[in-house]
């Protein structure tokens, strides 16, 4: 007999949802579904509508931008237990980069419109989700700043 695990149970395993009670998890699970992406498959593309965000359960994702004359530049990779995507939170809700599965990726995707509605209806839930996302944003900003510093390069070296 196969055990069927609910999405709220899967979500509970991810530290992003630490501290959410059963009721809140069930509420958010109503916006969630399990997805998988083959290696090389695009999860989303820049300038398209940011309709979801993702909790990566397995595999790695490359966040990249095509730069004319330089090919596709990988800005960062996102791996297991990390969250992918924040553009769904900020108007005009469009992705600013591409996300491509480097390997087989299994993820929980959360429908952005559904979740934004729930956050609007339940400000407590909205506040707590923002509490989770602001550190993710801050961490990405911090990492980008450090990368810009080019700490391992020599002064004057391009």
């Amino acid at each position, binding site marked *: 007999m196969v055990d069927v695990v609910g999405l709220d149970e899967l979500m509970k395993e991810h530290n992003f949802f630490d501290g959410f009670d059963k009721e809140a998890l069930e509420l958010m699970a109503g916006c969630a579904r399990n997805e998988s992406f083959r290696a090389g498959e695009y999860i989303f593309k820049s300038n398209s509508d940011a309709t979801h965000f993702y909790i990566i359960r397995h595999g790695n994702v490359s966040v990249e931008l095509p730069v004319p004359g330089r090919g596709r530049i*990988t800005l960062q990779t996102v791996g297991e237990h990390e969250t992918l995507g924040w553009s769904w939170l900020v108007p005009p809700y469009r992705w600013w980069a591409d996300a491509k599965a480097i390997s087989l990726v299994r993820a929980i995707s959360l429908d952005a419109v559904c979740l934004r509605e729930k956050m609007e209806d339940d400000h407590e839930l909205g506040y707590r989700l923002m509490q989770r996302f602001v550190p993710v944003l801050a961490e990405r900003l911090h990492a980008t700043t450090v*990368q810009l510093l080019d700490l*391992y390069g*020599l002064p004057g070296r391009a």
Partner: protein
Amino acid sequence: MNVLAPNRTVGQDPMVPRSFVIERVRKELSDTYTMDLVPRDGLPFRFEPGQFNMLYVFGVGEVPISISGDSKVTAGISHTTRSVGKVSAALNALQPGDVVGVRGPYGAPWPVADVHGMDVVFVAGGVGLAPLRPAIYWVLAHRAEFGNVAIFYGARTPEDILFRREVQQWRGRFDMTVHVTVDRATGAWSGKVGVVTQLIKGGGFDRHNAVALVCGPEVMMRYAAEALGERGMPKQNIHVSMERNMKCAVGFCGHCQWGANFVCKDGPVFSYDRAEPLLSIWEL
């Protein structure tokens, strides 16, 4: 730390170099070379992981360089040097058979001999892997005496991964984990892209029973120590290797003074509880 280097006899002038012959030169990166040196006097050379030598390029000058080879090998020494100034560029232009002066070893080592039974986390950035390599050799040579061993390594690009073949070998071992990330992906790189501190988040060590040895640019070490602290590692278990303008290497000249410390003899390895207050003072 004893100022008198262990290879010197009492009464020998610590400012007089021993002469070593360059036996082999390996190009590691576009601007980074490893030199294997053997002493002309045939006497053994002993050091502890984390210590450095003053290398003298005759007619050009002297520069402090961490030892990057295996401390179990006493017949010679290895140094990995990046060309960043006049002396290091001159050093990297030398060929096998050329002679350099060596004073040392100097400085406080990585505390690998004092942390038996603990998990060991190496965090390296760029050419900061070179001063850590003797400690990695030491831990792997005494592997059964430690818990989990993890290396978190950040490089500028895939082409800038130092000791690439060894890193791959370490990664293939079943008794340690190696995570590599680059700031900028190039070519067919399919590994991680991002800063080394993000690797630390993945853990793989017991925060209450682990020691971290961190080496790289100062800003990177500070962020790495903060990330380790966020994972619950006590500051006194985090060790960083500092770099300052070392001249005499024996605590006389004061060039490398860092607060109340001389980096050459009180360091270069400091526990983070000692280093943190000073790292936040940019003028030091």
